[in-house]
């Protein structure tokens, strides 16, 4: 547990020291949100209807950058080898990094919400419901994302491989998060919010468990 906390603290500190990177990733996500509106045209009701989808697509695209970065820095000076020599389990390393990535993605998601509200006129006062969707959705992105980033950061075509592997896998997260966010923004007369949140939670639980089980094999061999 101590090792997990130390790993988490280390990754959070790394992110904080390299915060210009985070700002750049946020700018990338915001630029994507701006571009999506050009694809639809200046029809404000259509934009508002699709706002949730754009938010999550922007977040998903930006997440591949931040996930890849989280392992790219471990490849410099063979830092990963050094980490593995420490008397800490690989599971602690995985969860430390995955939680740090989760925190970063959740922060990114929350930062992109005001951009969405301004650009698409998609405001809501149900902030707590929105926060739950962002937390659970980014949890579902960060667990498999951290596992795959560990592999792809060591390959030749890493910029292509991470999205190629991650995107099909997180289709359920995208579907459920978009639906739930839409329900928060546009109103939920049929009470459908809860099943989508349950799906997000179930996805996160499953992938956080298998990620912890399999990560050791990925980095040790």
């Amino acid at each position: 547990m101590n090792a997990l906390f130390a790993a988490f603290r280390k990754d959070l500190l790394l992110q904080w020291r390299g915060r210009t990177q985070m700002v750049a990733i946020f700018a990338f996500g915001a630029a994507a949100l701006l571009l999506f509106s050009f694809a639809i045209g200046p029809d404000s009701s259509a934009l508002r209807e699709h706002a949730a989808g754009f938010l999550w697509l922007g977040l998903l695209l930006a997440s591949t950058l931040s996930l890849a970065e989280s392992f790219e820095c471990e490849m410099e000076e063979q830092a990963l080898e050094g980490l593995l020599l420490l008397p800490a389990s690989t599971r602690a390393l995985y969860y430390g990094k995955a939680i740090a990535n989760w925190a970063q993605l959740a922060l990114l998601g929350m930062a992109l919400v005001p951009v969405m509200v301004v650009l698409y006129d998609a405001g809501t006062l149900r902030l707590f419901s929105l926060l739950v969707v962002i937390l659970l959705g980014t949890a579902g992105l960060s667990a498999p994302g951290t596992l795959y980033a560990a592999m792809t950061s060591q390959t030749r075509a890493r910029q292509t491989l991470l999205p190629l592997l991650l995107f099909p896998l997180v289709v359920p997260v995208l579907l459920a998060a978009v639906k739930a966010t839409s329900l928060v923004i546009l109103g939920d007369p049929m009470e459908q919010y809860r099943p989508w949140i349950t799906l997000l939670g179930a996805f996160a639980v499953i992938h956080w468990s298998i990620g912890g089980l399999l990560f050791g094999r990925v980095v040790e061999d």
Partner: protein
Amino acid sequence: MRASSARPIAFVAFGVALLLAGSWWGLAKAPGEVFMGDVQRIMYVHVPTAWNAMLALTFAFVCALCFLFTNAWKWDNRLEAGMEMGVVLSLLLCMQGSIWAKPTWGVWWDWDPRLTTTAVMVFAFGGILALRAFVDDPVKRAVWSSVACIVAFVDVPIVYFSVKWWNSLHQAQSTPQTVSSAFHLPLRINAFGILFLWVGLVGLRARVAALRRRGEMAPPLTQKQSATGRAPITGGAV
């Protein structure tokens, strides 16, 4: 070496023969369907392809588990072969489905759970094949593709249910119980035909994978061996 490839080739030949027989039966002898007419006859390859695509990917998943537990190379060979076969069959499944959907539903594509899940599977497992292509170290390649295969396979049911909640329009799965008895025989013959075909092809493909890795892991030629070989050494060798 010839003896070890005889059995897969026999499987392939038997599979092709069964497929020809079943397809002839389905196209010429079985009655047309009442509402869809001859379009429905694609079912004789479509439904067996669906069963076998799932079977091939399940086989790949089992190989991935076996590799992670035993570290035996034969499981990596089978994983590579089984995953390729699963992707090819899933791709065929999407194409057959589109060919059937255009005259029946009027569209090439529909966001129905099984169609969408199959497409997601093609990308998920195709991505793992791409990962294999970009990792040079055979050990890392084997471990990583096993891990990725397990994660992707576990994900398939979640994708299916999420898309099902999201949108649904497909008819219920075809099993011999839901299909009129006149259609049974060609369906079953083709199912076994495709089964034998892919098992034989996986056998051959696994051998190719084994030979390729043997080449990768062989020690580089020493100077003496090189000198006796055909390629002349022009310098740089120590």
